[in-house]
């Protein structure tokens, strides 16, 4: 579904991603680990096509279409979606407005069906009436992001740290909804949607079993393997050692 080949990306004149390759098939969920500042968010922003993320080399292909030069909304129309690690606050634009936009409605009220949707994420009606992200707590931001994705229903979903700063109960809630969004409740052969999840804690992995994990170091995918193995090695030995072990023993 998503194929990234030899991707090199510059941000503000600085090379952040180097010669990166990644292939995510339809129905697959991959998880991306890596230390702070290694380029994880940059990769997602580049996949979404934000203008300050300049592709210097390589291609991004989505559903067989080369989208390297597509604008963000063209990519979104094709079925890409993302939950942001640090979404901006927009004054005067309510969370309810964002949900309507994600639903493809340019205008609209906060109606019963939206309230129902919000309830599933433990989001109260009053919250839909608040300016998006303005004064939201860390956990609230995450739930608001997932709510918008639930409305948007993309075919390929990128989650940038959906579990950071979220309490145990809400992690379970978010995890379950992510499973639904990513067709994880279906038989593997029936799964169509795919995703890429960035997580530091790996908490969300208790609820959603990924197919493959990658470790990113200095803008490159340094090693890849089975999620359980990789998580264990990172937790026990750290990122560098995990990559080293991988190269000694071969793929995890």
């Amino acid at each position: 579904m998503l194929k990234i080949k030899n991707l090199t990306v510059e941000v503000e004149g600085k090379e952040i991603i180097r010669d990166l390759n990644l292939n995510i098939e339809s129905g697959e969920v991959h998880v991306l680990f890596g230390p702070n500042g290694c380029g994880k968010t940059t990769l997602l922003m580049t996949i979404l096509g934000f203008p300050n993320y300049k592709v210097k080399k390589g291609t991004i292909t989505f559903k067989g279409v080369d989208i390297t030069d597509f604008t963000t909304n063209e990519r979104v129309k094709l079925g890409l979606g993302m939950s942001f690690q640090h979404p901006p606050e927009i004054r005067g634009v309510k969370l309810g407005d964002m949900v309507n936009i994600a639903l493809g409605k340019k205008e609209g009220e906060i109606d019963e069906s939206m309230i129902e949707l919000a309830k599933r994420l433990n989001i109260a009606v009053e919250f839909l009436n608040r300016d998006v992200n303005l004064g939201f707590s860390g956990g609230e931001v995450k739930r608001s992001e997932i709510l918008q994705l639930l409305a948007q229903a993309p075919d390929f979903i990128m989650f940038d740290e959906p579990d950071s700063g979220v309490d145990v109960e809400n992690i379970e809630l978010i995890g379950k909804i992510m499973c639904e969004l990513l067709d994880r409740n279906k038989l593997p052969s029936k799964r169509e949607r795919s995703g890429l999840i960035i997580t530091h804690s790996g908490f969300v992995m208790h609820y959603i079993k990924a197919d493959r994990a990658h470790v990113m170091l200095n803008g490159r995918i340094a090693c890849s393997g089975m999620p359980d193995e990789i998580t264990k090695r990172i937790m026990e030995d750290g990122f560098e050692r995990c990559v080293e072990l991988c190269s000694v023993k071969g793929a995890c």
Partner: protein
Amino acid sequence: MKEDRIERAERARAKKAALGEDIAIEDYGTGKEHDALTSLDEIPEEYKQNLLDAGIEPSERERSGSFLQRDRSVIFSKVKYPGLELMSTTDAIEKYGWLKEYLWKAIPVDQDKYTAEVELDQTHGYFIRSEAGSKVTMPVQSCLFITSDKIRQNVHNIVIAEENSELHLITGCAVSHSVSSALHLGVSEFYVKKGAKITFTMIHSWSSGVEVRPRSAVVIEDDGTYVSNYILMTPVKSLQTYPTTYCVGKNARATSQSIVYASGDTKIDVGSRAVLQGEGSKAEIISRAIATDNARIIARGDVIGEAANAKGHIECRGLMLSDTATIDSIPELKATRRDLELSHEAAVGKIAEEEIQYLMARGLSEDEATSVIIRGFLNVDITGLPDALAKETKKMFDMSLEKVM
């Protein structure tokens, strides 16, 4: 009394205003009289849209009364509900001797050449009064309409809410498309008595040849409330106004919200000042200004705290959509004692790239995202209005925004 007033006005005839570029009043004629209408709906078809654009409902639906002044003539004035009075200020001065206690009491007649001009050559304006205890939640609408070219319109409006009464007013100022230049001088004095409430929603729908110099002041007594909503979205040649609200009574409350979208070569100097003289009085000034093309906006806010436990806040936000426009945001606070609290926040900036991208990530094009952000920026919560009126004000605002975007 009257002689004294006229003398003072005469002496101020050439007195330049403290703010705004000077206008040669004599360049504008006095215009001709127009025939009265028996219903507002009779207004010629070509003018109906002008009225609608200024928030005026020609059908008079959902209005407790209507007033229409065309150039120098009051061509319609009727009130449908008991407890309310509505007529030309000229008629009211003749009818009520006591009105002299209100005339030029909130604004000095010799403030500048514009106030002087209105005194010396006044052509009507509206007088609205709600009787003590009466509460009509349906708004009165008044329209000041210019349809003749190169004329000046000099109105003096007086609005009085007697004790414990409630009065809601929508004023629309409009100009017909055939007018290439005109001058509007409007003096407005509002009196909010003990426990009373006035809400004033004003839509300015001018055009690029019109010069405008409103002079407004509000006096609020004990436990009185005054809410003003001002919307200006269309171009104007130049507009300068700095309405002052005097919270003289204990616990007097004033809220002023203004939304200004300036395009073309529009020059606007608009502010709001509150003087907190009553113990525990409170004022809030909120403004949103957008400048595009070559527009110049000066957005002022001023709170002067003089009484115990007074509270004032200014929130001024500006959004720049062009590199050839300018916004000056000037919030001022003045405290004259310890036991009060004044604050302001002001910000001017451009649309954040990040916000556009966020909206694009949810499927909007760049233009759609920009328009959502602008809409959001201007979206101040309209508080203090009856539900129906709040909804309608929101609709009027959406409509004006639709026009400019």
